[in-house]
């Protein structure tokens, strides 16, 4: 690999800019699956057109792989239809739960890290991967509480999910940092514990310091300590695709690209 594979999240506010076919410096885009699963309107047209020029990853927020009430079959059917249309190079979602029964919370809710959760999640991943006919990536989420009866560290839990299900991880370094601060562990120990071949993609984003906790807002630049952790990972894993997420107070596309391309500069300092 001769360069860092850096992308940004596709957001509606940038549609006019992207549709004008400007010179784009990043290499790929990540689209939030649910925003394209129920539309044949403009968002769908923009993504379809973008896909002709760029690799696209589909990143879901509502699969709810850890839901005790199961994964929705109709959701998976819609996702499959979108996958067939877009032909993404990565399909990912989060290691969390988002619905229970027929009620959706549209949030990335935390799971107790127990054997019970592990076997349920692995069963669901098996089912989804065979239904979609491909391997998926699952992302570690930020959380504001943990469960006392958890018997795994977050990194041991993630590793066990990968080992048993054959999925890979979408490692969100910002989420590791947020959780390390909120739940008082060493983020570097987390990163160091995950083997390269378990990591299929990296997320970078900004959080907000709320005074009493760190909140995963995706509303600003990536913070220095998170870049430091990125250094640590990219040094040993040069081929991993890296993506910058920005969801609130979204800047111009140029500023977004500049922030994302910091990842490429750091990459070059080790592998250029």
């Amino acid at each position, binding site marked *: 690999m001769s360069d860092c594979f850096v992308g940004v999240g596709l957001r509606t506010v940038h549609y006019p800019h992207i549709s004008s076919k400007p010179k784009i410096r990043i290499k790929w885009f990540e689209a939030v699956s649910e925003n394209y699963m129920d539309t*044949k309107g403009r968002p769908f047209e923009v993504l379809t057109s973008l896909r002709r020029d760029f690799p696209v990853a589909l990143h879901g927020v509502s699969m709810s792989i850890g839901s005790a009430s199961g994964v929705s079959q109709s959701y998976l059917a819609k996702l499959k239809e979108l996958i067939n249309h877009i032909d993404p190079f990565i399909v990912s979602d989060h290691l969390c739960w988002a619905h229970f029964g027929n009620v959706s919370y549209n*949030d990335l809710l935390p799971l107790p890290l127990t054997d019970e959760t592990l076997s349920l999640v692995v069963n669901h991943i098996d089912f989804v991967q065979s239904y979609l006919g491909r391997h998926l990536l699952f992302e570690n989420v930020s959380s504001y*509480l943990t469960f006392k009866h958890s018997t795994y560290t977050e990194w041991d839990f993630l590793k066990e999910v990968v080992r048993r299900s054959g999925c890979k991880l979408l490692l969100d370094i910002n989420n590791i940092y947020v959780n390390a601060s909120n739940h008082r562990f060493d983020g570097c120990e987390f990163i160091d514990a995950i083997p390269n071949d378990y990591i299929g993609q990296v997320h970078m984003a900004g959080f907000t310091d709320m005074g009493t906790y760190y909140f995963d807002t995706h509303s600003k630049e990536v913070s220095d300590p998170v870049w430091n952790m990125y250094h640590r990972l990219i040094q040993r894993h040069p081929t991993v695709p890296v993506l910058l997420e920005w969801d609130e107070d979204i800047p111009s596309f140029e500023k977004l690209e500049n922030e994302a391309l910091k990842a490429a500069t750091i990459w070059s300092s080790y592998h250029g």
Partner: protein
Amino acid sequence: MDNLSLKEIQEAFSHMIYQKDQEKKFIASIEPGGTLSREEAIGVYQRAYKARFTEALGETFESVWWVVGDPQFFELAEGYIYSHASHVYNLSSYGAEFPQFLEKNKLTQTYPFLSDLATFEWSFKELFHTEDTQGIDAEGLAQMAEDGSLIFRFKKAFHLFSSPYDVFTIWGQRKNKNKEHAHINWKEKTSLMIYKYQKEMHIKKLKEYEYALLTLLYLGTPLAGALQRVSQEFHSLSPQNISDFFAFLFHARVIESIDK
């Protein structure tokens, strides 16, 4: 203490997020993040839930928000959110029953048009996400002249809307921070067709006879019958009015096919 199962945790969490109840056993089973108390840590999720769904409603019902202002919109949103759980995986599909919810709200005494405005915004959003197909053009017009038994099939990206209030003008002002709805004469009947033309959204104000004719045709009334009924109702209607309107319909390409 017995550990809660995953199902019990998700049930308890659901109750707390949605109904704002406190579940003692659940609270005892968690370790809060940062320097938060247990209740505060749960509060982070409760607040995020309300904020997320309020934002979703605000995006779809932007002009309802513009009319009633922040405090009243947030109150409406809260009332709706805690009485209407989400059953959709896509946040932008949340709020289907918001227009009916508004209808029963006391605010309709001040803003009688509010529910209709919300219905219009929901229809607009739905149409925005509908695929555009190419309707038939002037050839269809020629064919039409020959046969009164024709039945029109309209394309999916076509919607008829009517209200006793001029919600279209209110909607048109929704991004105007310097104006208030009070300065708009909303007490005027409005009939509209919302449609896509070359993948773009369009809205056309309809005259009363145009709306009446389109409604009949949309419901599958054969052409001759529809024309006859409209001519009986609107005496001043000339053949020129009719042919101009059909010329527009074919130009706008909203008719997908014509059945005999």
